[in-house]
């Protein structure tokens, strides 16, 4: 494995290159997330920010955090975020009207002030200080070290997290699942028995798919049945209604010997 960060506390060349390429991109994407008008674009930029963060984590020797960042945030949270956007409507415009007068100006001033304060404080606390402790924490290996903490010292909070997950499932079901009255729709089992215990087994394995073998497999060419007639039910009803169906007999092999002639058991 390639170690991107070679020594603790010193930025080595590959890590520096990685950082100076990705950091501006990440900041640009974060700014773009705020500025772009369409919510979906904003969400995609957020995904980019999350992926770059994951790369940074891994480069900083926090392998587990980087993987969790990708698995949970970039995968799952992003998906959830997109679904929420789509529940609201992809084209729903942001409301830019201010309900409280001077809200935006105050918010920007407060945010800049808060950010400036935080940056100056963190700067004072970290610049000219040697960072310590990472080598110690990572001594048994990043993931192994975490595992030994989660499953020994913090085993109780870990178990309690399962309560959190159950609550989340309850919440999702309560808020989003409507209990349809029983019998409103046939169950999978009932549908299956209708299919196999009905009058005919002709369509039990599903409808035939469109196209003629090796000659034309587009959706507008009906399949040819063994007796040479086109199968109407292999074509979408929409195409039939629009009159876009082609005559598939033109693709049949006229010269093929008749099956009956070849059969030897007559």
């Amino acid at each position, binding site marked *: 494995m390639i170690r991107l960060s070679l020594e603790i506390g010193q930025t080595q060349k590959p890590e520096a290159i990685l950082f100076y390429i990705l950091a501006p991109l990440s900041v640009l994407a974060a700014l773009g997330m705020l500025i772009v008008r369409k919510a979906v674009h904003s969400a995609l930029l957020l995904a980019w920010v999350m992926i770059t963060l994951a790369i940074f984590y891994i480069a900083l020797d926090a392998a587990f955090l980087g993987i969790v960042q990708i698995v949970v945030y970039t995968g799952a949270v992003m998906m959830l975020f997109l679904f929420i956007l789509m529940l609201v409507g992809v084209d729903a415009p942001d409301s830019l009207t201010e309900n409280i007068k001077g809200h935006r100006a105050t918010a920007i001033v407060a945010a800049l002030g808060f950010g400036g304060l*935080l940056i100056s*404080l*963190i700067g*004072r*606390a970290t610049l000219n*200080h040697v960072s310590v*402790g990472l080598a110690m924490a990572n001594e*048994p290996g990043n993931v192994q070290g975490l595992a*030994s903490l989660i*499953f*020994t*010292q*913090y*085993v*109780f*909070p870990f178990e*309690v*997290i399962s*309560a*959190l997950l*159950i*609550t*989340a499932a*309850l*919440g999702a*079901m*309560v*808020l*989003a*699942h*409507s*209990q349809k*009255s029983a019998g409103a729709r046939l169950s999978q089992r009932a549908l299956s028995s209708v299919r196999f215990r009905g009058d005919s087994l002709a369509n039990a394995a599903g409808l035939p798919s469109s196209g003629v073998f090796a000659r034309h497999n587009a959706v507008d060419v009906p399949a040819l049945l063994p007796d040479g007639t086109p199968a109407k039910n292999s074509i979408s009803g929409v195409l039939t209604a629009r009159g876009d169906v082609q005559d598939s007999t033109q693709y049949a092999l006229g010269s093929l010997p008749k099956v009956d002639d070849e059969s030897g058991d007559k």
Partner: protein
Amino acid sequence: MSDTPVLQYSFLAPILIVLGGAVIGVLLEAFAAAKRRAVLQLTLTLGTLFIAFLSLLRIRNLTSAKAAMGSVMIDGPTILMQGTILLIAFFAVMIIGDVDNFTAQASAVPGSDEEKSALQAGRQQTEIFPLTLFAVAGMLLFPAANDLVTLFVALEVLSLPLYLMAGLSRHRRLFSQEAALKYFLLGAYASAFFLFGAAFLYGFSYSVTLSGIHAAVIGGTANNIFLLIGLTFISLGLLFKVGAVPFHAWTPDVYQGAPTPITGFMAAATKVAAFGAMLRIYYVTFAEANWNWRPILTVIAIATMLVGSIVAITQRDIKRMLAYSSIAHAGFLFTGVIALNKAGLAATLFYLLAYGFATIGAFGVITLVRDSSGEITDLNRWAGLGRRSPKIAALFSFFLFAFAGIPLTSGFIGKFAIFTAAYESGNIGVVVVGVLSSAIAAFFYIRVIVMMYFADDNGDSLTVVIPSPLTSIAIWVSGGVTLVLGVYPTPVLNAINTLATFIR
């Protein structure tokens, strides 16, 4: 790699029993017939809380034990706060048991045909009961947590069900859903700040345990800027939970929009849990760094008392008024926190018990005042209620007296104890503001009473419904506790005084 962890299950028993009950509740949701769910769930929930309380009584003398590899601290304040939470939750569940207050089907769009058919079919969201138990489990863990990881997990376990339950009101559902969303978004934001603070405190002390951070605080060699940032952000997360000014904005909306039994539960039990955790953090971990947090918390206490009391005067809605009153009470509780002495700790614990029961009772009464469209919370329409239902109105007046701190109610003893503690710590300014805002607050409580008894009956269609047996037990017991704590508080005060010592 290391020895097998020892969890000391008997010390954790109250929390584990409540969690177990909640899990069984979810299984009941999955496998029990829909018709019997409500009764089964109610029995299970009350039974679980009762058994958890019994198991707490069994460990009440083990007042200096660490459990779960040091994640949980069982000391006197833990026992007292867990007991208070379990008692409050028990009576709150009795009121929650009246499922008429909750939506028939939360996923149905308000006003849709689906909602109507769910109402006609008599569906119920009995998920409320396991959710309540999960919240109670989080609340039990929150004041006992001895490291920041456990503290954060407990914070989420107690918050998540509350966010959800705030949106399940039967009437005025859009309002309720808006409340839930606001509570969730702001709560998630506050949690993020809490986590950020925890990270900085780890940077400060190389430890997430409260004793480890304390060692770094008295060691004095660590990076103090990290301490400041961490302390600020952790406090911010906790201040949000108790609804202190300027993090109070969610309180009126959520109290008003949430189903009233949930509002009562939330107002009473969340305050105990959050103040419990706050007391532990400030008294155990940051006591020696009090020059960092005491001045700003003093300002917050004063602002909270004043804003809560003054804005409550302008409210026309009873639930909103009680929300601002709860903000003011958070301010009074802060005077106990910043006293930073044993008297302050004991007084805060007593105040939490007294306020909790009065709150459960008061919101219980509000669930009873209805007309055909549901609960009536508009204060003007309460006019003349005292003549139509003298008993209920008298009980409600009694709870309001307790909030106001009139003698012979628990509120008086609580306020007296807490202001005495603040006075002893030399914080005269806070005491003056506290008494002043108590006087302002008394005005709007008395106004409600005057309205109920002396205003003209406006011939309104609202009635006080006959409470279900459980609801009436809950509100009358709350009234009884409020009276007993006001008339003869000595045994409780003595018990609290013997137990109220934090162990590091």
